[in-house]
């Protein structure tokens, strides 16, 4: 059941993003930035967490889930670190994914031949 939900919900988010991009004739970068911001805002209002509980990877794998992680990491650190968490909190939950992408990116640039 969780697999079906992940497929349908994750697919639906991508479908909406594609529709918005095609109908507004905008670029992928605008859609990606907008998605992260929307996810962060929804996370701040406490709307994304129940959505993530419901849809699992369908909600957390697409980019709005990244925005949600930024905010939820920050909110989690607020009671412990106070205002410092406004600066330090967001990377706590997302650092692993960002660093993984950087490491694999640099490694890939080492092992692949430059394509013209």
């Amino acid at each position, binding site marked *: 059941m*969780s697999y079906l939900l992940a*497929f*349908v919900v*994750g*697919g*639906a*988010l*991508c*479908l909406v*993003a*594609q*529709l918005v991009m*095609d109908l507004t*004739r905008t670029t992928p*970068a605008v*859609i*990606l*930035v907008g*998605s*992260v*911001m929307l996810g962060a*805002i929804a996370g*701040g209002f406490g709307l994304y967490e129940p959505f993530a509980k419901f849809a699992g*990877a*369908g909600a*957390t*794998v*697409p*980019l709005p889930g*990244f*925005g949600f*992680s*930024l*905010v939820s990491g*920050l*909110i*989690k650190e*607020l*009671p412990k670190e*106070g205002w410092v*968490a406004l600066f330090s*909190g*967001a990377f706590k*939950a*997302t650092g*692993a*994914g*960002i660093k*993984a*992408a950087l490491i*694999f*990116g*640099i*490694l*890939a*640039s080492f*092992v*692949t031949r*430059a*394509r013209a």
Partner: protein
Amino acid sequence: MEPKEYRQRVQRLEPQRPIARNALWAFVVGGIICLVGQVVQSGLMAVGYTEETVKAPTAIIMVFLGALGTALGVYDRIAKLGGMGANLPITGFSNAVVAPAMEFKQEGAIMGTGARIFQIAGPVIAYGLLTAFVVGIVRFAIMGGKP
């Protein structure tokens, strides 16, 4: 020429986008990638990760899969078909980091790979952080430090 007029001319010359077909493929490709993400997450939880600790390793594995697909040249083909279905998931974020890292290798390790690696991911992270900061301030103002 006025910017508005220019935009109208560009729109007239731009090829029509097959909107329904793009949307369908975005759904299918995005759905499959999220399904894979769920398989990874459930698999990790089966070997002892909790709901709290499973997020980071799931992200790392999905990023690895996206990087592998990019290095092998498969991900670009998936993205051509799936559009946002391939770009919106975290594997697409990985692709957005790994692809320029590889592509700009010829401009050097520092100003090529090093500088271009954030070409697409940079704006996403920058505005994501800014939004999280503002949202955090609002929450802090309203609720103090309460989670």
